[in-house]
């Protein structure tokens, strides 16, 4: 099928391994995302706070600087709260980034019926979801737990091995809480994108879901005089889990295990909604 011959030719060469096909989708989807200058600019902006934290860690461990400004004991304490606030700030940035990037991942394929083109090939629905979710997963990881771990390692290097050993649990808390947040955000964004099919509306709906959830939770709690309303507030549920993971001492409104189960249920619902829509053709019964 050479260009100049213009004839049909079959292909009998080597094929790539079947397990690696989802990476193709990841590569194309990521390339497509970064065509947007706005998204690229926001992605870069997401690294300002980690750089600020890095400078803070450096200065907090620089005794001569602390002596110069006379703040040896009260400049900045690098502890669980420091990494908790880092995770919280980056978590909100991750949420905004998801609202930008998430809805366009699937809606573009659904809007013009491209799904049969994917699924008529040796490529499954779960590989499709994996390929698309990995774009968000890796993108959000790059601004949450990856810089968080780098900061932890920098602090461990500057403060010495005993600090690292005593605070190793912070690293795991950082990774686990970020991964939970990334999972729920990615699944929610993709499920909304699959059901709404319109990128802008899906993005707005994602923002609305979080803020509307907060308001609804307050209303339920006030009207029914209960704490059950917190179960519809995703950000609050995540906050409870993070508080527990980072050992922040606050009075919990609901237990951390209940919050974790609620998040798990939300993830399962999103996945079910997503898989219901992600098929070559919808069957009208």
């Amino acid at each position: 099928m050479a260009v100049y011959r213009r004839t049909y030719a079959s292909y009998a060469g080597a094929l790539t391994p079947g397990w690696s096909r989802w990476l193709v989708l990841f590569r194309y989807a990521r390339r497509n995302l970064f065509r947007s200058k706005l998204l690229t600019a926001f992605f870069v902006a997401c690294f300002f706070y980690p750089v600020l934290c890095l400078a803070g860690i450096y200065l907090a461990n620089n005794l001569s600087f602390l002596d110069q400004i006379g703040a040896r004991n009260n400049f900045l304490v690098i502890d669980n709260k420091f990494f908790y606030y880092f995770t919280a700030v980056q978590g909100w940035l991750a949420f905004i980034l998801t609202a930008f990037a998430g809805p366009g991942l699937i809606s573009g394929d659904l809007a013009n019926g491209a799904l049969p083109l994917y699924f008529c090939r040796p490529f499954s629905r779960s590989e499709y979801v994996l390929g698309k979710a990995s774009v968000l997963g890796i993108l959000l990881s790059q601004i949450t737990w990856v810089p968080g771990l780098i900061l932890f390692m920098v602090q461990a290097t500057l403060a010495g091995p005993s600090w690292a050993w005593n605070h190793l649990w912070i690293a795991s808390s950082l990774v686990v809480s970020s991964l939970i947040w990334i999972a729920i955000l990615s699944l929610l964004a993709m499920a909304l994108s699959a059901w709404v099919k319109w990128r802008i509306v899906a993005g707005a709906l994602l923002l609305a879901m979080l803020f509307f959830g907060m308001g609804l939770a307050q209303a339920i709690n006030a009207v029914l005089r209960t704490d059950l309303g917190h179960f519809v507030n995703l950000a609050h549920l995540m906050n409870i889990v993070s508080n527990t993971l980072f050992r922040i001492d606050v009075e919990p409104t609901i237990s951390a295990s209940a919050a974790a189960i609620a998040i798990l249920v939300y993830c399962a619902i999103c996945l079910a909604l997503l898989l219901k829509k992600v098929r070559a053709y919808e069957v009208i019964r």
Partner: protein
Amino acid sequence: MPTPQAAPPVPLVELQGLSVQFGNRDILRGLTASLKGRAIGLLGPNGAGKSTLINTLLGFYPPHSGSARVFGYDIRSETKKIRGLIGYMPENDAFISKMTAVSLVQMMGELSGLPANVALERAHEALFYVGLAEARYRQLGTYSLGMKQLAKLAQAIVHGPKLLILDEPTNGLDPSARQRMIRMIREMRDSGQVRILLCSHLLRDVEDTCDEVMILKQGGIVHYSDLNEERKANKRFLEVEFYGANGDFSEAIEKLGCECAIRSNRMKIILPDGVESRDIFKVAAERDVRIRKLNFRRDTLEDIFLKAMEN
């Protein structure tokens, strides 16, 4: 010394009592057939189950009962193997509007298992082949309907499949674009490297490209035939218009062993083996009968289709 016999060709598609249901509705009812041709046409009125059959073969819909095999692979358990051998051009719009044609076709090639560099090379070749060379760097959202059809064809052939499934390939094409599409389908069929399953409600498309036809009606098979055999059979059937004949002429024709029916100055003749049309001319010349018209009756696909629908 016995001559080695060629192995019988693997049936393209084997259906064994295949049924598909959506809810409680029967869409396909116990289809049984073995399709072996190079190019097979699926015909039927709207709602006959043509697209459902294709989608079931691709593994999009699960069979309710019965089974089907494509190149000997079971559609329930070996879906990935089947999909690896198939190129599919869907009926409806299927594209990503923000992507260029070359990117989409390359991505689809890679998803079919081609290495990235090979996929890019073949994407260009496929787009040149279908006639989108100049427009291959344009976003698909800016394409006309005809160009989108061509892009769908390009993505279906980029990985060099062994079976090409075309669902209404000439939808929305103007006459010249339709001719071009039909010519490409014929070229691919004649290359012997790919077999074709063409689904259409346009009889002309099927007649122009296929050598076998399966007609569906209300989810069942009402007719399956080899069009070449039908065409050969029709060559024994003549319609003759003449002047200046008397009873001698029809008697002489019958003496040749032909069956004939005469009405005014027209005669329908079924030729037996060994008798050709020149024998008819000879008999006419001997009796000074002037033959004004002699046609081989051509049982068109339309006739076959209408008969199948009546049945």
